[in-house]
C-alpha cells in the first residue's frame, strides 16, 4: 500500500467523496466569491490553523492553553519587525518568528512542567504570560507600543503574487492560509501516528502510567508545546502580512486566545478535523449574526442606536454551552458516525 492510499485509509468512500467535494468548492471559491466571502473564508482558515495548533496541546497531550494569542502575536511582531527594520522577507522571517514563539513556549512549559503546575494552573500561567507580553509591548516604542506597528502597503501590492514578501491579491492570501491550515492538518495526522502522538495521548490519559512505561513525561510535554507554539507562530506571520497592522490590545487580547479554543471545542477536541470543522461552523455563524443585526437595524426593527457588539460572543458562548452539554466530544465525531465518513475500525 503506498503512503497516499494509507493516508486516506480511515475515510470511507462517502467520506472521500465529501472530502473531495469540500476541497473542490474551497479551491474554486475565488472564482465566484466576492471580497467579503473571501475575507471570511481567509479568516476561517486562519482560525483553523490556530485551532489545530491549540488542539495539538490540549487534544493530543492534555495541556490546556488559554494564552495561545501569545504565540501568534510573537510570530506576528517578530516577522513584521524584521521586515520593516532590516527588510527581511517574511519567507525567511518566519524562521526567527517560529524560533521566538517556540522559545516562549519552552519557557512557559519549563516553568509549568518542572514545577508540576498542572491542569487549570497551567492554563493560568499561559494567560499570565500573554498578558505580560502584551503589557511589555505596550511600552516598547520601536514596536509601536500602544500606537500600533504598521507595515507599508502600496496599492500596487494588492495585485499579483509575491510569496517571498507576502504581498499580493486577496486570492494569494486565501490559497496560502488554506495551504497552511491543510498542511497543519497533515502534520498533526503524521505526528499523531508517530511515537510522539502515542506518547502524548498516553500522557493525556494518565501521566503516571506513561512514566512507568518509560515515557519521559516532561520531555514529551515540551515537544507538544514546541510544535503547538511553532504552528501558532506561523499563523502570526500570516496575520501580520495580511492585516499589515499590529496592536497589542488586539493581537494579545484574551479574546483571541479564547477564539482559538472555540473551533476545536465545537468541532471536537482531540480529533484531527474537528478544529477545521468547528471553525467552519462558528466563523460564518458569527458573520451571519453580525449581518443579521445590521440588516434589522437597517430595516428599523432594532433601534440603530443600540450597541450589540457583544451579541456575537454571547451567541458563540451559548453554542459552546450547548456543545459541552449535549455533544461534549464535539460535532465532528458525531457527524462522522452519522454520515459514515470514516471506516468503523479507524478513529477520526
Amino acid at each position, binding site marked *: 500500500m503506498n503512503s497516499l492510499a494509507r493516508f486516506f485509509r480511515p475515510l470511507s468512500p462517502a467520506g472521500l467523496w465529501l472530502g473531495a467535494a469540500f476541497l473542490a468548492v474551497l479551491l474554486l471559491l475565488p472564482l465566484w466569491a466576492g471580497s467579503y466571502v473571501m475575507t471570511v473564508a481567509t479568516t476561517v482558515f486562519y482560525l483553523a490553523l490556530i485551532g489545530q495548533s491549540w488542539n495539538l496541546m490540549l487534544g493530543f497531550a492534555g495541556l490546556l492553553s488559554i494564552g495561545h494569542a501569545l504565540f501568534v502575536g510573537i510570530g506576528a511582531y517578530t516577522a513584521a519587525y524584521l521586515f520593516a527594520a532590516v527588510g527581511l522577507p517574511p519567507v525567511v522571517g518566519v524562521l526567527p518568528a517560529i524560533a521566538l514563539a517556540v522559545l516562549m513556549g519552552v519557557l512557559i512549559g519549563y516553568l509549568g512542567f518542572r514545577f508540576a503546575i498542572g491542569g487549570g494552573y497551567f492554563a493560568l500561567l499561559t494567560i499570565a504570560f500573554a498578558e505580560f507580553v502584551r503589557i511589555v509591548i505596550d511600552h516598547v516604542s520601536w514596536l509601536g507600543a500602544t500606537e500600533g506597528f504598521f507595515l507599508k502597503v502600496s496599492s500596487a501590492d494588492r495585485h499579483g503574487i509575491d510569496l517571498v514578501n507576502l504581498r499580493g491579491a486577496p486570492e494569494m492570501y486565501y490559497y496560502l492560509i488554506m495551504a497552511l491550515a491543510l498542511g497543519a492538518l497533515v502534520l498533526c495526522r503524521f505526528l499523531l*501516528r*508517530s*511515537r510522539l502522538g*502515542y*506518547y502524548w*495521548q*498516553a500522557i*493525556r*490519559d*494518565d501521566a*503516571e*502510567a*506513561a*512514566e*512507568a*512505561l*518509560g*515515557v*519521559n*513525561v516532561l520531555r514529551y510535554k515540551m515537544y507538544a508545546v514546541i510544535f503547538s507554539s511553532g504552528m501558532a507562530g506561523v499563523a502570526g506571520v500570516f496575520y501580520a502580512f495580511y492585516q499589515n497592522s499590529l496592536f497589542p490590545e488586539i493581537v494579545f487580547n484574551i479574546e483571541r486566545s479564547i477564539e482559538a479554543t472555540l473551533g476545536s471545542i465545537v468541532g471536537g477536541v*482531540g480529533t484531527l478535523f474537528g478544529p477545521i470543522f468547528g471553525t467552519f461552523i462558528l466563523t460564518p455563524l458569527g458573520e451571519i449574526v453580525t449581518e443579521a443585526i445590521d440588516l434589522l437595524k437597517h430595516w428599523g426593527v432594532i433601534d440603530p442606536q443600540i450597541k450589540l457588539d457583544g451579541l456575537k460572543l454571547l451567541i458563540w458562548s451559548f453554542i459552546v454551552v450547548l456543545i459541552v452539554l449535549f455533544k461534549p466530544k464535539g460535532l465532528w465525531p458525531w457527524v462522522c458516525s452519522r454520515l459514515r465518513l470514516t471506516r468503523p*475500525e479507524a*478513529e477520526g
Partner: protein
Amino acid sequence: MAALLRVEGVSKSFRGLLALNDVSFDVVERGIAALIGPNGAGKTTLFNVIAGVFQPDNGAVHLGGAEITGRRPDEICHAGIGRTFQIVKPFAQMTVLENVTVAALHGAGTVASARAAARGFLEMLELDTKTAQHAANLTLPDRKRLEVARALATGPRLLLLDEVMAGLRPSETDRMVATLRGLRDETGLTILLIEHVMRAVMALSEHITVLHHGEKISEGPPERIVRDPAVLECYLGDQDR
C-alpha cells in the same frame, strides 16, 4: 543464584507516619517472589519506591548490581523494571492495541514494529480479540490483563505485579499463573508480585516476603511462611483473603 533486585534497609515515612521501616530483601534472577501482608502493610509503597515514584528516606535499591535509588520512573523502566498499578491506569481514550504499543515503543525502532510486538503481548494475555476496543470499555479483569500486557511490552528484566489476580475467577487466576510461569521459563523474566489471592501466591512463588506495619516480619519459601506463627498472627481473621 545472584540477586537481580536488592532492596537494602529502605525506610519511607509520610508526614511522620512510618510506612516502611528498614526493609531489606533480595529477589533472585529468574525467580518468582511474592510480597504479602495485611492491608496497609506498605507493599504498594515499597513497589513505588522500587519503581521510582517515591524517594526512600533511607536505604537503597539495586537492579542487577547497579543502584537505581532516586531515579525517575521512566529511567527505572528503561533500566529494566516493568510495573502494573494496583488501581489500574489504562489510557482510557486509546484502544487496547494503542495502550500496549505505547509500552512497546521504547524498545522498538518504529511504530509499526511496536504495534506488531504489542499484538504478541495481547495474544499472550488473551486480549487479542479486543485490540480495537477503547480501554475505557474493558471489564476490570481485562484491565488487569492490559496492565500486565503493557508492563511486559516494555521488555523488563523484572516485572512488578501489584494485585493483578484480584477480581479474576479461580480458572482465570490459574491461566494467569500459567502465563506468568511460562514467561519466566521461556524468557528468563524475574517476577515480584504483591498478591492477596493465596491460590496464586502458593502456586507461583518460590520465595515470600511478609510485611506488616511497614516492617519485614518473615521471609522464606512458601511452605515455611504458612506455618510461621508471626505471619499467622498478623493475618488472624484475615486468612480467607
